[in-house]
């Protein structure tokens, strides 16, 4: 990957540079966060001309390494005000890598009020006016179909929906998946940044692209085989996720008393059966038609945690129907109807908003009296109003923190104004430390992986006790920052945590591709350096340790059934980043 493309929307200038020296060894999150820290003024307004949006494939993207097709997108977040790295599947990352594009940067903003499409092919980058057919409320499903028809079925597409056009803080960037459906760089409002630069879509045409060069092909193939075997032979990635998706976590978190419900006032519900992964599997199987219990979000995915969820007639409703979205609407908002939740998920994808942020905002809006508790029809109607946007649509699209303020609530589950996902920090304390301290705002995916022997950092954890949780949260964030830089799906961790040879194979693939001799220690150092870069940006943007805190209500509202409160002191929380 030797091209570094800059598109300046103020001047219309396009520059295709060689990769700057400091970024040659970086990919994915390491690259996007380093770039944002280097070039974005930390105190800039996220929707102003000084913010920059960067797309970067991971170090292994475009190769035959299983599950390596993830893309990182970075900028200053309009939701949190912090640095942001968002991660997505789809075909974009692998196409960028095969086209030799290390990064695509969009900077500046045009003075006129038109929307544009950036088209990138092997020998050209062009800025064109966006077709009127995909503007003014057109949903992402139709817009992707239109652009695919216009530019060819194999093009990669990154697009903002109506929410991005209106620069709402929950707006995401949607990516075409292998079947023309939608994957999302969801969290933190990067769709609003793209919308602020008046870029409706980026089209990648990889006609004429070759393969990604591998320095030592034999070693690469051997390592990839070990890696694939580690994934497929593990019951989590080989069986659990493929059959039940991430929604398998509903019953588990519910049983553990850590499923935040009715705006974080309960840790367990009685209607878990209605929204569980087991029920989703049975429903998809029974309905047949377009339904698939297992589906990969990008080529080369062998875990296949996604699925196609159909309606009663067997017609596709949505895919990538994740636990966190189903939790937020099903448990936190109390909607006892999986079909309505699926239609809401589809609507959020179509409008282009983060389905965690908006779904938690819906639950908060129910507590605030804007919507009736558990009313799925009302929630779906309100979500669709984000596309207009009506005043209610703008409030929901503003995210959970905005809803909490508008409704005068103290119980607003956010950190750095980003909604807390599906694992209650009072009952799963290690996750709470990650929510509090990650540079991204509350984000469960910020603490997902750890290198080396998992037992050394998590062998004796009790989710309700503080012992070992600081080391756990620190190690998990470091490991995650490293894996996010490889282009690997974080879910590979399920397989390699219990397989030391699988983890080594991941490092061996990177070494074979680039002719390096990295060790697991080097990978840990990479993770640490990414986090330090991100913390540095946030510090210069005005964030301090005082922002690394959970909302106060967690400290005095005990969560049933275990009746736990959040009891880490500020000094203990600050220890997470003492490295």
């Amino acid at each position: 990957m030797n091209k570094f493309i800059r598109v300046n929307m103020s001047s219309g200038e396009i520059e295709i540079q060689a990769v700057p020296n400091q970024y040659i060894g970086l990919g994915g999150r390491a690259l996007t966060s380093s770039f944002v820290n280097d070039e974005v003024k930390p105190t800039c307004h996220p929707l102003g001309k000084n913010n920059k949006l960067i797309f970067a494939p991971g170090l292994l993207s475009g190769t035959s390494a299983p599950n390596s097709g993830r893309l990182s997108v970075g900028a200053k977040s309009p939701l949190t005000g912090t640095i942001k790295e968002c991660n997505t599947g789809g075909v974009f990352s692998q196409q960028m890598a095969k086209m030799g594009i290390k990064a695509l940067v969009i900077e500046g903003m045009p003075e006129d009020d038109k929307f544009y499409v950036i088209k990138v092919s092997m020998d050209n980058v062009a800025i064109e006016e966006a077709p009127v057919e995909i503007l003014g409320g057109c949903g992402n499903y139709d817009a992707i179909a239109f652009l695919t028809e216009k530019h060819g079925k194999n093009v990669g597409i990154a697009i903002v929906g109506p929410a991005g056009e209106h620069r709402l803080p929950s707006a995401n960037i949607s990516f075409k998946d292998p079947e023309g459906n939608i994957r999302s760089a969801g969290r933190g409002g990067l769709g609003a940044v793209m919308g602020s630069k008046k870029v409706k879509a980026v089209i990648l045409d990889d006609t004429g692209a070759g393969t990604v060069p591998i320095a030592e092909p034999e070693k690469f193939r051997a390592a990839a085989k070990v890696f694939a075997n580690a994934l497929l032979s593990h019951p989590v990635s080989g069986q659990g996720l493929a059959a039940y998706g991430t929604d398998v976590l509903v019953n588990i978190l519910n049983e553990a008393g850590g499923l935040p419900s009715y705006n974080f006032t309960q840790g367990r519900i009685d209607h878990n059966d209605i929204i569980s992964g087991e029920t989703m599997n049975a429903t998809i199987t029974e309905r047949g038609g377009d339904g698939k219990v297992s589906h990969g979000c990008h080529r080369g995915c062998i875990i296949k945690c996604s699925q196609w969820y159909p309606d009663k007639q067997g017609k596709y409703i949505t895919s990538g129907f994740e636990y966190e979205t189903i939790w937020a609407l099903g448990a936190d908002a109390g909607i006892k109807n999986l079909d309505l939740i699926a239609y809401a998920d589809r609507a959020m994808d179509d409008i282009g908003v983060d389905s965690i942020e908006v779904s938690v905002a819906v639950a908060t809006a129910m507590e605030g009296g804007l919507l009736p508790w558990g009313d799925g029809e009302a929630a779906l109607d309100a979500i669709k109003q984000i596309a207009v946007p009506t005043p209610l649509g703008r409030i929901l699209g503003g995210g959970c923190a905005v809803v909490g303020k508008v409704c005068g609530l103290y119980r607003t589950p956010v950190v750095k104004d980003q909604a807390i996902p599906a694992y209650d920090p009072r009952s799963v304390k290690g996750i709470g430390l990650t929510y509090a301290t990650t540079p991204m705002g509350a984000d469960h995916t910020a603490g997902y992986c750890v290198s080396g022997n998992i037992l050394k950092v998590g062998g004796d954890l009790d989710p309700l006790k503080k012992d070992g949780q600081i080391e756990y949260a620190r190690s998990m964030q470091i490991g995650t920052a490293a894996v996010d830089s490889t282009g690997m799906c974080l879910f590979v961790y399920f397989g390699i945590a219990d397989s030391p040879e699988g983890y080594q194979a991941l490092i061996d693939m990177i070494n074979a591709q680039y002719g390096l001799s990295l060790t697991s220690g080097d990978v840990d150092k990479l993770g640490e350096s990414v986090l330090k870069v991100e913390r540095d940006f946030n510090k210069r943007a005005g964030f301090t340790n005082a922002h690394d805190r959970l909302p106060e209500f967690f400290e005095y509202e005990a969560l049933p059934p275990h009746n736990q409160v959040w009891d880490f002191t500020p000094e203990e929380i600050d220890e997470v980043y003492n490295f």
Partner: protein
Amino acid sequence: MNDPKPSATEIRGFLHLDSYLRKKHGTMPVILHLLEPLTGIELAKKLEIRLHEVEVIFVNGFVQDLDTVIQPGDRVAFLPPGCPGPYRVALGFYGKNQKNASNFKLSK
């Protein structure tokens, strides 16, 4: 879901054990009226759940070893290997699964 009597033990199965128990017993949760305490291993055998299909059990919302003693009236769930994410660590499975057939054969 009807309120079970105090001595009635509520039993759930997750992942493929969900459909297995539903098919075998017709309901979820399965309600057993236990007369005396028994271990998770004994309960699994009573329900014809194979031990290698269980990573940990939940007893009254707490993750436990398979040989934990279950009292009549407890709420129990059998969890096969297959819980994704860091949650097997965060929820404490690794501290409780070491004696099980499905402990993935790791050592400290």
